């Protein structure tokens, strides 16, 4: 672990990403503590202000403090994105491992189903799921989780097939290890590295998809602070005060950018074949 961190510090891209992720996760986790205002408190007199000492990132059309709303918006979007990616990792990972282990028709059935899910353009599948379930941040997390499941199923199945063909797995099986033990103790550690990279990169895109869906009005619903929704609402007041639009979008970019940088750096660090060779 310590060696990993030493290498991370030397990988500039990974390190910048890591720091950004910490900032964003910290903002989401400690939002109630570091927010300067109540994110719901309205003030008619302080509407549509620019950044100032009292309101660091200005105020929106209801006079609500944008800095505090961005922090709480992070809570919504990060928890939605994390929940979605967790769901996709579990569902996709289990499906991929079962497919690899079972082989035969079960393998074909599972992977064919994943192919069908992959056939939809990302946002349309998410929209379809939300059309069935109705809007809201929990349903948005479910929708994004379903959309990302096939990615993890494919990612888990490929390397698992390779590992399962190795002699030591045959040895473990000969010693009487059951399927769950083989998968967890022998296969999983071998596919952990690409899985970690994919989880980080998926968080980056899930944040963008969540923001898009909320921007469209299908994701998180008001009054819950949400970055996509803030950007969407602030458009009508742009000519009076562009600051809410600028900062809510910037906050989305920062989070997605951070996770993507970190994932990119992780790929260098965890993939021995790519190490030093990455362009």
């Amino acid at each position, binding site marked *: 672990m310590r060696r990993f961190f030493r290498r991370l510090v030397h990988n500039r*891209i990974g390190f910048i990403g890591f720091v950004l992720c910490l900032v964003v996760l910290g903002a989401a986790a400690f939002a109630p503590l570091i927010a300067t205002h109540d994110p719901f408190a309205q003030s008619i007199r302080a509407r549509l202000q620019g950044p100032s000492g009292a309101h660091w990132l200005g105020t929106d059309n209801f006079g609500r403090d944008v800095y505090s709303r961005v922090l709480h918006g992070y809570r919504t979007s990060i928890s939605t994105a994390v929940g979605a990616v967790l769901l996709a990792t579990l569902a996709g990972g289990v499906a991929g491992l079962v497919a690899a282990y079972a082989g035969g028709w079960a393998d074909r059935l599972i992977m*064919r189903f994943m192919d*069908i899910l992959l056939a*939809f353009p990302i946002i349309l599948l998410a929209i*379809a799921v939300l*059309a069935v379930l109705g809007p809201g941040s929990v349903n948005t997390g479910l929708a994004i989780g379903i959309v990302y499941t096939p990615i993890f199923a494919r990612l888990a199945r490929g390397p698992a097939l390779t590992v399962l063909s190795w002699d030591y797995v045959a040895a473990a099986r000969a010693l009487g290890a059951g399927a769950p033990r083989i998968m967890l103790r022998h296969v999983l550690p071998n596919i952990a590295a690409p899985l970690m990279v994919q989880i980080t990169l998926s968080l980056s895109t899930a944040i963008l998809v969540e923001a898009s869906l909320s921007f469209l009005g299908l994701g998180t619903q008001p009054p819950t602070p949400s970055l996509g929704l803030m950007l969407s609402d602030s458009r009508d007041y*742009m*000519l009076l005060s562009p600051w809410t639009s600028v900062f809510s979008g910037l906050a989305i970019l920062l989070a997605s950018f951070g996770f993507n940088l970190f994932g990119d750096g992780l790929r260098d660090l965890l993939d021995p074949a790519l190490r030093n060779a990455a362009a």
Partner: protein
Amino acid sequence: MTSYVVRRLLDLVFVLFGVSVLIFLMLRMIPGDAVLIMLGANVDITPDRVEALRRSLGLHLPLHEQYWQWLTGVVRGDLGRSIWTGRPVLDEILARLPVTLQLTGLALAAAIVVSFPIGILSASLRGGTADTVVRILAILGLTLPSFWVGVLMLYFASIYLPLWPTIGYVPFADDPGGNLARMVLPVIAVSLPMVAGLSRILRSSLLDVLSLDYIRTGRAKGLARRTLLYKHALRNAMIPVVTVIGVQVGYLLSGVVVIEQVFAIPGIGRLVIGAINERNYPLVQGVILIVTAVFVFVNLLVDLAYAWIDPRVEYA
């Protein structure tokens, strides 16, 4: 090659079948009574109207018969009727689809045209700091929320280019100049992430190819740098770029659905969002089915193009 094409077509039929089942089930998986939800708060709903809608959607039949009825309808081009306007869903979609296809096509073309020079130029910048900077810029481009870029561009255009037509849509046939002028900002917003993605892949693939032996041989026998780059290296370097274009079109379509909302462009994106808000489920189903079918075909074309460009691809 023929057997490869046949196999891909069979795959396609299977995937489209699966897609159709999922989209069919959509309406049936809505918690509660979909018909009552659709009719919503309309005051003039009578039991007769509810029953009529139920029958027109075929909801009174057993599930497999419903599917069969729906599927045979779809194959004949009957996607049902829009709940509110009563117009055939297919007509509603066909009226909007060209707008979305134009926007997507222009964005795709713009992304390809712009990413080539950027990819080639950035490949000539190598080494520690340059690599890092190029990578950070590429990731920044990939994660730019296109709807944010669109909103910001609208703002700046309204201040610095007040005469530029920024929002809305006019058909190309009515006013070619006005049509293209309105496309400029949305195309930029939606193609930026793709430019970043494509030029990054082109750069790394170009750097790989340039380190191969046949390039060294070419240099040793005195070929000009330009010839070497454009005639020998670029063609091979393009292969990975082509493979990702199919995937990228999916992202592009997703971006377009959202950007239509920003620029008030009456395409498929606005159609489906509006349909969801008024719980017009047949229309939602129709849009998702048609757009997914288009997407699946584009991916097939990209795969075939890939097999055609790179003779090493296995067809078996």
